[in-house]
């Protein structure tokens, strides 16, 4: 267990050290390519401001992710119980998923304003699809023999759903959740980059416009860690809650 956590930690420390040594020895200007030590100094110096904006981004990401689970599950259930709607829902969701955000961002900002709501909508647009698609794949993965046995026993539609289709789809659902959650923080930040008054996107915009590259790198570092932590927490939670159906 310790080795499981120690190995990646050691790798990160070694890479950081290697960067520090290479950048110092080659004399590359820290203004262009800041050394890890400078990035950490900048992170500590601006921690209060970064944390304040991180909270906003995390709020958008978590809210958007929560709603996207709901949207994905509801759409998959509609497709299961009303198969005639599946041929409409699936192509429409694929179309929505492929609309470039840059193109619809002005509309979203006009409708929802420059606050968190527009970013939450962007997070939903990015993350609901893998949840819906995986859940649908899960419903379709039900063992044919089991379906036949449920038919022979004359199980009702509700019994078929609760006792067979839903539990069969749980591993697919957790896989869909993991794919979706890995992109929620970056989706919130991309939304903020297109127009915001708060959030890590704002910190990135400010650092770029003021040529504060160590601060930019510190923000990127925080973004990456936040993404990893959210993915990790969701994985642990889903394994805890859904474990009885995964084994």
């Amino acid at each position: 267990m310790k080795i499981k956590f120690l190995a990646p930690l050691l790798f990160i420390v070694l890479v950081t050290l290697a960067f520090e040594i290479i950048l110092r020895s080659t004399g590359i200007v820290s203004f262009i390519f800041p050394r890890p030590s400078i990035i950490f100094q900048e992170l500590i110096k601006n921690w209060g401001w970064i944390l304040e904006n991180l909270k906003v981004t995390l709020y958008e990401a978590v809210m958007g992710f929560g709603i996207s689970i709901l949207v994905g599950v509801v759409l998959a259930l509609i497709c299961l119980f009303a198969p005639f709607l599946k041929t409409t829902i699936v192509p429409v969701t694929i179309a929505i998923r492929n609309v470039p955000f840059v193109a619809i961002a002005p509309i979203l900002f006009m409708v929802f304003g420059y606050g968190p709501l527009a970013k939450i909508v962007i997070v939903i647009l990015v993350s609901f699809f893998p949840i819906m698609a995986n859940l649908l794949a899960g419903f379709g993965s039900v063992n044919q023999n089991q379906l036949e046995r449920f038919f022979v026993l004359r199980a009702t539609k509700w019994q078929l759903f609760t006792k067979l289709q839903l539990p069969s789809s749980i591993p697919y659902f957790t896989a869909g959740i993991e794919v979706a959650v890995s992109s929620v923080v970056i989706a919130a930040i991309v939304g903020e980059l297109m127009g915001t008054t708060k959030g890590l996107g704002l910190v990135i915009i400010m650092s770029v416009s003021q040529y504060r590259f160590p601060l930019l790198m510190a923000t990127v570092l925080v973004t990456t860690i936040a993404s990893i932590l959210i993915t990790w927490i969701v994985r642990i939670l889903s394994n805890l809650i859904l474990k009885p159906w995964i084994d």
Partner: protein
Amino acid sequence: MNAIEIKNLNVSFGNLQILSDISLSIQEGETIAFIGPSGCGKSTLLRIIAGIIPTMIPAILEGGISIFGKNPLNLQGGIIDMIFQEGNLLPWRTSSSNLNLGLEILQNGKVRMTPDEMLVNVGLSNFSKVKPAKLSGGMRQRISLGASLITAPRILLMDEPFASLDALTKEKMWMFVEDLKIQSLISTAILVTHQIEEAVVLSNKVCIFTGRPASVREIVEISLPMPRMGKEGILNSEFFDIANKIRSVIKRWENEN
């Protein structure tokens, strides 16, 4: 009383004829084995008896089929149950919970015994909280049989239930099924198998099918007393005579075609 009555049944999937002029009657309490070349339509006939075809799998059926005098499509739940090569078990349920599945679905249906009592019956009382992944192939099939028998179905359909087991486990399973029959836990049953010895050990009749489109080539009656395997699993010469007779019918058909 005839549990299953099939008269001049012809079945095709589109233009492809699967079964040709099948006529067969199976009495209540009888076990019949279906033997024939791979893909000839034995499992299709099993699914027609269960009503799966044409409800779940579309097909064109001509002729008559009745289960206790009724159309298979009009049967209520609990009359028939099935067991497959991979078993019946849901991987996320424990042995006890898998045994309970039929009772949960049928709710007001007949309850032969509780899951705990059935676990004792299948010799796995210490495995009630264990999930199928942690059980051996033989154990899984024992629980599967228990899960199918707990609601006391009047007809048990077995589609190559022991095909994936090794030879020794298979023989143990034959003895186990014989025991269930002696205890009257299995009433009417149909066994689809590729193994002649299995058919002779477990059935009263062996129905030999031709290749596709399958028709009944011959029905061999087996009047050997039960149990046929004995405690040591020894089969006598009479048993091998019948097995060889069935083998020769199959060979004869193969040579003719």
